[in-house]
């Protein structure tokens, strides 16, 4: 049981990468908007796409953790 919990915890560590990635993307996007406020629509769209793709890694980690807990009792 303990080993399963540790495994699930390690799987969820993928969230670190997603957090750093989305943080960097958002900082660059706010920089870009402050430079060119008129392009904020396009920047928002690109930011959202990047966030969705970066966030997917965290979600995969989460799904793997859930699968570990459910199927490796």
């Amino acid at each position, binding site marked *: 049981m303990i080993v399963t919990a540790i495994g699930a915890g390690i799987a969820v560590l993928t969230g670190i990468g997603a957090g750093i990635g989305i943080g960097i993307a958002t900082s660059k996007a706010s920089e870009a908007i402050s430079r060119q406020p008129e392009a904020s629509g396009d920047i928002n769209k690109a930011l959202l796409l990047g966030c969705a793709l970066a966030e997917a890694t965290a979600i995969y980690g989460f799904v793997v953790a*859930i699968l570990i807990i459910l199927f490796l009792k």
Partner: protein
Amino acid sequence: MDLASELMSKLDNKISFTIPVFGGIPVPESVVTTWGIMAFLMLMTIIFVRNLKMVPTGPQVYVEAIVGGLNHFFEGILGEEGKRYFPYLGTVALYIGFANVIGIVGLTSPTKDINVTGGLALLSILLIEYSGIHAKRVKGWIKSFSEPMAILLPINILEIFIRPISLCMRLFGNVLGSFVVMELLKYVIPAVIPVPFSFYFDIFDGLIQAYVFVFLTSLFMKEKMEA
């Protein structure tokens, strides 16, 4: 251990009833909720489409704003030639949006069931490949797998399988993740504190995921349609 077993019992998809033909077809809760959403959307459509006027008044203004906003959003990605796909994409956006926020009234979201998101992702990849075939004919579509270089052929073929899996897992994982976090929060602090978190996880995250799903689908379609 009490919390874990309670959480697990909430995670699996319950069977609400069984149709007594062919030895019994089980109907999961997600399908029943989907029927409810379908009936609601249909009813709204019938109510608001009656007595349309050239100069909109009353609720017609809001309906026009929603439909116009959706069409404008898809037109920005797909352009004029993708106009035939707007109704499907708009319907999927509305359905996923409703499915994600329905948890707030106490029903289980259909998107918490991996079979629902898998089906939606399957429909998306079919539409993506169909739009490629329709725009460039079969020959051009097959040829598009060896672009920009012939060496990328295996990766381009793998993409057919990776894209629906990633679409499916993204939606499912997000809804499941917010559900688990909300349940944990309700377990620790049952009152007041979960309300703002519910706004974030149920409404904001749910709508963002609906947006991302149709956004990625239309983006992949655009990629397939381009010469």
